[in-house]
């Protein structure tokens, strides 16, 4: 089952023979070295949230969604503004980027990463036409040094 970045739907990986399931990962085998901290390795092509769900949860991977009791409440609904959509896309890119550091051979994840990068280029265009530059070096249709302009991200809500 392919994850289509356009439909933004979560994906399920093909069943792997030694698959551990979303909340588990692989250990070195029946035996491991003494006196060493082992963290189970997340498996290749893991199940993913949609981009918006990922941003609202704080991770792209249901396997890593481990909430605290004092905060198990209805998931926050973020507004679908141009900024929030870009935040969700950039977040998916950051998450996949970290995953790829320790899973650099996962071809499916790599393909998804590049497809998100391309989408993000359009997302930045769209945001910048409305609100001005994201990087100091971004060109915008504005006259004058648009980089200076309020709001800055910490001012009440920025442009969200």
């Amino acid at each position, binding site marked *: 089952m392919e994850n289509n970045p356009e439909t933004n739907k979560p994906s399920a990986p093909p069943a792997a023979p030694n698959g551990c399931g979303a909340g588990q990962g692989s250990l070195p085998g029946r035996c491991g070295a003494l006196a060493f901290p082992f*963290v189970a390795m*997340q498996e290749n092509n893991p199940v993913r949230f949609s981009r918006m769900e990922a941003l609202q949860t*704080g991770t792209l991977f249901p396997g890593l969604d481990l909430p605290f009791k004092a*905060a198990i409440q209805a998931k926050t609904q973020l507004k679908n503004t141009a900024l929030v959509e870009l*935040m969700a896309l950039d977040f998916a890119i950051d998450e996949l980027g970290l995953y790829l550091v320790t899973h650099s051979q996962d071809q499916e994840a790599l393909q998804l990463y590049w497809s998100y990068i391309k989408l993000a280029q359009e997302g930045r265009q769209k945001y910048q036409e409305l609100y001005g530059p994201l*990087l*100091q070096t971004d060109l915008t249709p504005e006259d004058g040094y648009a980089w200076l302009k309020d709001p800055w991200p910490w001012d009440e809500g920025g442009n969200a």
Partner: protein
Amino acid sequence: MFVYEKKLQYPVKIKNINPKLASIIISQYGGPDGELGASLRYLSQRYSMPYPELKALLTDIGTEELGHLEMIGTIVHQLTRNLNEDQIRAGGFEPYFVDHTTGVYPTAASGSPWNAAGMAVKGDLIADLTEDLAAEQKARVTYDNILRLSDDPDVNDAIKFLRAREIVHFQRFGEGLRLAKDRMNEKNVYLVNPSFDQ
């Protein structure tokens, strides 16, 4: 090098001021397990890492933590805007206010200023990554404690996000250790320090 992008990683829009909560949350700005310590620890540890995966991991996570530092600063800033003197007194905010007004200063909730003693760079691959695992757990617990103490949904929304990140970072540091171990002596990982020995 560092480039700044003019947006937060996650939205922070706090509707209600709360100086008392601000003086708790400031611990994730300048406290022992806060984001300033996290970013500086990871960005400093990366220089002595021998393998590219670990250089990338520490750089990327260290950079993300700077973005989290920004979110915490934003939360404290929004919680303390337009305060009048009664609100300052009612919030128990006076000790912070007298020295910093409503500026954002790197200190712990206890009033101890940020201290590098809260972080370590040991120059040994296993020690540094194990330190990082511990750091992410301590940050996660601090966020748990903030969630116990706060009933503001806008604040909790951002805090939940930051907490979730700590768990993911813990996982990645653990994976980094696994990858490093595969390149070290199979019978004895402590034979040499790959961050130092040739």
